[in-house]
Each structure stands twice: as C-alpha cells, then as structure tokens.
C-alpha cells in the first residue's frame, strides 16, 4: 500500500468540494435592492405603509415603511425568493412573491387591498374605538370578583363547622366550650362573608350590561343570605347570653338556629349557582 496516492486523492476531493461550495457562497452576497411605490386601489400613494419582506428559504425578514411620497427601498438583500407583504391602517394586508436576482435593483410597486372600513359598515367611532380605561375597568371588575369568589369559597369551611358545632352549643347542651367555639367560628364566618361581599359590591359595574343566566339566581339568593348573615349573629348573641345566664333560649333568640340554617342553605345554593361558570 502506498499512502501518497490516497493523500493526493483526498486533497483533490477537498479542493473540489471547496470550489463547489464557493459558488453558492458567492451567490449569497447581499447586494440586491428592491424598491417601489405603494398605492391604494384608487392609485393614490400611501405614506407610512409597512413593507415586510421575508426570504422564503432562510425565513429572514426585513421591515421598512413608505415615505411621504409612498416610496420604499430595501437594500442589501440576499438573492432568492421572497414574500412581500404590505399593510396600512384601513387596508387589508396584501402579500405577493418576488424573486430577487444577485446585484440587481428591482422595482416592485405594491397596491393595498381593501377599500372598506368599519365606517362603511355603519359602525360609529364610539362603537369601534375602545379605550385603555374601559379595559382597566373590566380588569378591575374581574380581579375583584375573583377575590370575592375565593373568599366566598374559603368561607364555606368555617360556615359548615359553625353549623355542625351549633348542635353542641344549642339545645339542652350546657357546655360553654362548645358555645365559645361556635361563637368564634361564627365570627370568622361573618367576617369572611362581609369581606367577600365587599369585593362583589365594590366591583365596577359595566354600563349597558343586562344581567342574564345563573348570575341572576346568584344575586337573588344574596337577598336571603345577606340579611341572614346580619340577623344570625344578632340572634346568636342573644341566645348566647341567655344560655350563659343559665336560661333556656327563649323569645326571638330561639329563631337563631332556623335563621342560620336558611342562611347557610341560601349561601350554598348561591355558590352552586355560579360554580358551572369559568
């Protein structure tokens, strides 16, 4: 075996390969220019139109804008196939394809498509133009209602516990521990309830919105559990005092349990009424 001829062949191959590679490298010189005018369908020049050009192979893109005379110019382009998009306010985007040859200065005049505007459809500017303030109002509303929802859901825990402990605190029971535990949990329930209610009541109202669907039931039930959440602790304190004095719960205070149950039931139904929404 003689290694010299094989080295020679290898060297020849490398030279041949490099020379082959050098052709496309030379072809990739970014020396082409594309320029033109952008007009509307009535042949009027369009200033400030956006031109977006993308090489189909490399996916590299360049963007420019027309001047006051509707002229644009894109320099230093690598030759190849390109997709050219032109867009401007009030017009739809128009896309076309162009092949750019090396070292050339090509002209591509572009016409914007779409002569129709929202005004042509009969929409007033008040209908079509939004504002950051309107969006901020919607954002605040959603944010506050999410807090309302979370606190409301958390409140179900002390609420259920209060109702369960109520059985031990009332009736013939003489245990002061149960009574105090019931009182403490009831206080937590009430505090969380009114905190949750605050976020619902203070959430911004959106003008021109008619209440539809399950939210109507949710709001209607608030007229039951709302007064119930005020009345229940009042009656509870009266019952607590009577019990603490060794008396049997009597008078209006004896309605504490029933009012609490109705309030809790309305509250639970209120949560269920909106738990199928997102």
């Amino acid at each position, binding site marked *: 075996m003689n290694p010299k001829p094989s080295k020679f062949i290898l060297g020849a191959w490398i030279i041949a390969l490099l020379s082959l590679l050098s052709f496309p490298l030379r072809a990739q010189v970014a020396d082409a220019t594309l320029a033109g005018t952008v007009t509307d369908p009535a042949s009027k020049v369009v200033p400030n139109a956006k031109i977006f050009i993308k090489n189909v192979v490399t996916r590299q893109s360049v963007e420019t804008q027309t001047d006051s005379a509707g002229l644009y110019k894109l320099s230093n382009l690598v030759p190849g196939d390109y997709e050219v998009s032109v867009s401007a306010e009030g017009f739809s985007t128009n896309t076309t394809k162009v092949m750019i040859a090396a070292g050339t200065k090509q002209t591509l005049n572009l016409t914007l498509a779409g002569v*129709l505007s929202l005004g042509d*459809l009969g929409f007033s500017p008040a209908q079509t133009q939004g504002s950051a303030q309107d969006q901020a109002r919607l954002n605040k*509303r*959603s944010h506050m209602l999410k807090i309302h929802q979370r606190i409301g859901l958390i409140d179900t825990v002390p609420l259920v516990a209060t109702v369960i402990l109520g059985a031990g605190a009332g009736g013939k029971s003489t245990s002061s521990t149960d009574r105090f535990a019931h009182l403490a949990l009831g206080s937590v329930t009430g505090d969380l309830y009114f905190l949750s209610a605050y976020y619902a009541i203070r959430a911004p109202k959106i003008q021109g919105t008619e209440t539809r*669907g399950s939210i109507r039931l949710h709001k209607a039930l608030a007229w039951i559990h709302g007064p119930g959440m005020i009345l229940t602790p009042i009656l509870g304190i009266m019952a607590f005092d009577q019990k603490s004095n060794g008396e049997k719960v009597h008078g209006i205070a004896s309605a504490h349990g029933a009012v609490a149950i109705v309030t809790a039931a309305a509250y639970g139904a209120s949560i269920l009424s909106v738990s199928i929404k*997102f």
Partner: protein
Amino acid sequence: MVFFLLLGIPIFAQTDSQWVLEQSTLTYHVTHPLHQVDGVSHAARGKGVCHAGQCDFLIAVPVKTFDSGDSNRDLHMLQVTRGGQFPMVTVRTRLPESASASATIHADLEIQFAGQTAKYDQVLFQQKSQGNEIRITGTIPATLTDFKIDPPSLLTVAVKNEMPVRVEMTWQRQK
C-alpha cells in the same frame, strides 16, 4: 352639488358590484373539562366590493354582542379578550368574483381580534345560492393563542386552546 356628483362618478365607476351581509350567526365554542360553552352573536355587519373580477370583503362584529347565556361569563370573556380596548372583531378576505358560482369557497382570512391579527389560509366554506342571495356556512379554526388570549379557567383548570367559530351568513348581491 356638482362637486359631489363628480366625486361620485369615479367611485361608482370603480365598483362593479357589491355584496351586503343580510343575516349572520357567529358562534364561538369553548371547551372546559367540566362543561362546554357556546357564545352567539347576530350583530355582524359586512360588505363586499367587487372590481375587475376580485371582491374585497369586510365583516365586523362587536365583541360584546356575543351571548353565552350568562352575562357574568360574557363580561369575563370580554375582559380576557381585551374587548374594552379592542371592541371589534374584523374579518377581511379577498375572493375572485367567480367564487360565488361554486359550491365551496376556500378563503384566506385576516382576522383582527383582541388587538392581534391572525391569518387563516384556505378556510373551507359551503355556499348555496338562491337568486341574489348566497348562504355561506363554515368553521374558522381559531385558537386562543392565535390572539394571545390567556385561557379563562374554572376551578384552576383552563379551557382548551381551540375556539372554533361557526359562521352562518346570508349575503345579498347588489348591482
């Protein structure tokens, strides 16, 4: 008066025919593991202007007109789709005038919604013509990410990204 008439002549001379949207039902569909939601709007307005064998169409609908049967959910949708700042959904398309003669249309749509523009290529629509009217039906395969919308969630589970929009429209040709 003469000035306005002179202005009017080139406008009418340029337009060969027009299409006007007579009736429409647009329905978005959102899927959550726990339930499905459809929001419907009949408030779209549209026009098509034909010239030299090509028709440019513009269809627009206020976001707040979509009704899912629950005003609270609709307001939440309005919020997540940035409807306060961008109150309209607009759809633009360009079709050859001859498309009205075929049973199906493949339309390239440019949709502006929630402050974003998305393009849908070759969306298939079925059409039936009756006299001067054409009824078009089809589904636009929209997704929430197309418009950079954060998916709303229920019980910390987000809705699916797909939000197909069913389109039913009746267009009337006006010479």
